[in-house]
């Protein structure tokens, strides 16, 4: 690793990446989280090859089968089956696709729209800034899960609408972060230099200033990735997210609710999956924060 740094010479971006990785590597929890996350990505991408069964085929002769290691279990359904005879392991494997997809879509939508609004508010100031920030205040005045729930009620319950709703309630954090860093960057000399040399406003916003605001945004993206998965699972649990028979983990929990005392395994495994995924991403987020900016504190 060190050899590479010495040889790379003027390539400062690469050097930055290496020094970031050196910091990140020292945080054992973050590395463990990263390994788990990469495994999950692998499982999600290879779901069709790994999963022993289809996630939605109902095996009517194997209803509510316990996991293989328990009495009455069957090794062809390793984690058992649910109330309509679907293989739990296969549903869990396919469920990882949903969670990662939700995380990626929500973060991308919230990040892109939030950064654009934040850049506009921070660059132009004045009444544009006031309007944007007041609207964000209104979104933040509602508890996020409640607002997401009501938005889904307006849009109609589906996975897509749940993702849109969650992206809307997360966007204000990106707007605030971007605006704050843009405003502090705007008074710096390099921005003045760029202005004097005649750089256009759009180029100033996206090329000159934005790259210098990235550190807090990356950390926020990691944290909101995990929040998005949690909120989507919560909406699924309330019947307002992914709809059955989609094997989304929160939706699986909702279907399993009435069997909690008879068949605890149908409740246990999807929850473990949500918890460990969210925990892994939060560990990565903590590591990112420490590596990118030691001064940033978790609120």
């Amino acid at each position, binding site marked *: 690793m060190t050899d590479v740094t010495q040889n790379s010479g003027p390539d400062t971006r690469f050097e930055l990446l290496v020094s970031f990785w050196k910091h990140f590597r020292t945080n054992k929890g973050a590395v463990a989280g990263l390994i788990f996350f990469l495994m999950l990505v692998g499982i999600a991408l290879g779901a069709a090859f790994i999963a022993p069964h289809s996630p939605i085929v109902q095996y009517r002769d194997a209803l509510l089968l316990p996991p293989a290691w328990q009495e009455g279990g069957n090794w062809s359904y390793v984690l058992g089956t649910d109330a309509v005879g679907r293989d739990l392991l296969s549903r869990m494997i396919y469920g990882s696709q949903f969670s990662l997809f939700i995380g990626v879509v929500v973060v991308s939508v919230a990040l892109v729209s939030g950064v654009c609004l934040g850049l506009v508010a921070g660059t132009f100031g004045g009444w544009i800034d006031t309007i944007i920030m*007041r609207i964000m205040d209104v979104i933040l005045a*509602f*508890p996020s899960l409640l607002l997401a729930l009501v938005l889904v009620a307006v849009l109609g319950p589906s996975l897509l609408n749940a993702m849109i709703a969650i992206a809307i309630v997360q966007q204000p954090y990106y707007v605030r972060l971007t605006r704050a860093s843009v405003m502090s960057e705007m008074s710096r000399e390099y921005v003045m230099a760029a202005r004097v040399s005649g750089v256009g406003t759009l180029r100033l916003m996206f090329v000159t200033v934005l790259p210098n605001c990235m550190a807090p945004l990356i950390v926020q993206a990691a944290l909101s990735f995990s929040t998005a998965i949690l909120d989507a699972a*919560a909406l699924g*649990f309330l019947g307002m997210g992914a709809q059955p028979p989609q094997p989304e983990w929160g939706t699986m929990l909702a279907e399993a609710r009435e069997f909690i005392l008879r068949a605890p395994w149908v409740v246990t495994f999807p929850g473990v999956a949500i918890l460990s995924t969210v*925990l892994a991403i939060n560990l990565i987020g903590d590591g990112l924060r420490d590596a990118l900016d030691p001064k940033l504190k978790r*609120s």
Partner: protein
Amino acid sequence: MLRLILKKLGLLIPTFIGVTLTSFFFIRLLPGDPVLLLAGERGVSPERYQDLMMQFGYDKPIWQQYLSYLANLVQGDLGTSIVTKQPVLQEFMTLFPATVELGFCAILFAILVGLPAGIIAAVRRGKTLDHTVMTTALAGYSMPIFWWGLLLIILFSGILGWTPVSGRISVLYWIEPVTGFLLIDTLLSDEPGAFTSAVSHLILPTIVLGTIPLAVIARQTRSAMLEVLDEDYVRTARAKGLSNFRVVGIHALRNALIPVITIIGLQIGVLFGGAILTETIFSWPGIGKWMVDSIFRRDYPVVQGGLLMIAAIVMLVNLVVDLMYGLVNPKIRHTE
């Protein structure tokens, strides 16, 4: 101080207007005819439709409708539930104490466990205990609480049989609502065992709702403590030969508390979100369950009114936290 209060209140006004606009347009954004949605009726005759239209003021221009909506709000009229035909505000007031009781217990639980946990982690910085506490806290922060609730029900209600599965109190008791807080009302009533029943119903929901605030408080306490433990006055206190307990528990903690109190205040909004899930799992008859049920019953006037009330309460609590922050921190009070 008065200027600070007025300034903060002034900042809240545009947000509050935005909140009223949101709840006003909520009904109009729903798919379907708003008049029929508000009346909760389908397939009405044209005459009846005209009546309803007049009744809800839909024949007037939209800005007049909004103004009369605001005028109704000021008089405490949040509309009428389609399902129960009760005024929304009255329903809210009946159910609100249950949520407050649960939320208060949850925050208390979070403080009683989270604060000591954070202090211990800070004092034992870098040691195994610190790592254990902080990993547990992060797991708590990552917890899907709807699953956590189901898990606790399986363990404590299913396997051990220690706690009831749902509700606020055993159906055997009828408690006259005096304050609306069952813990107090059961003590006031002379029913033997009623208080115990209320407590046993409250334990699991409290743990579930308190888990995320607990994790946040523990993490915040640790980082605030670490910051002050390096300060000169802590070193001075140690040099004076004060006991470790006195240094940590009094000199350091008192100064670390300000950010922790702020974080606790900011958890109120989070609590409402958590209450939606917790109350649904435990069939707790509070605001959260009421909102979810109303969304499913398409009782939109209730959703509209509840949304507004909850936002107003969260804003009010945040304002109070802000002001308290100014009260304990003279720097803020005087720069404003």
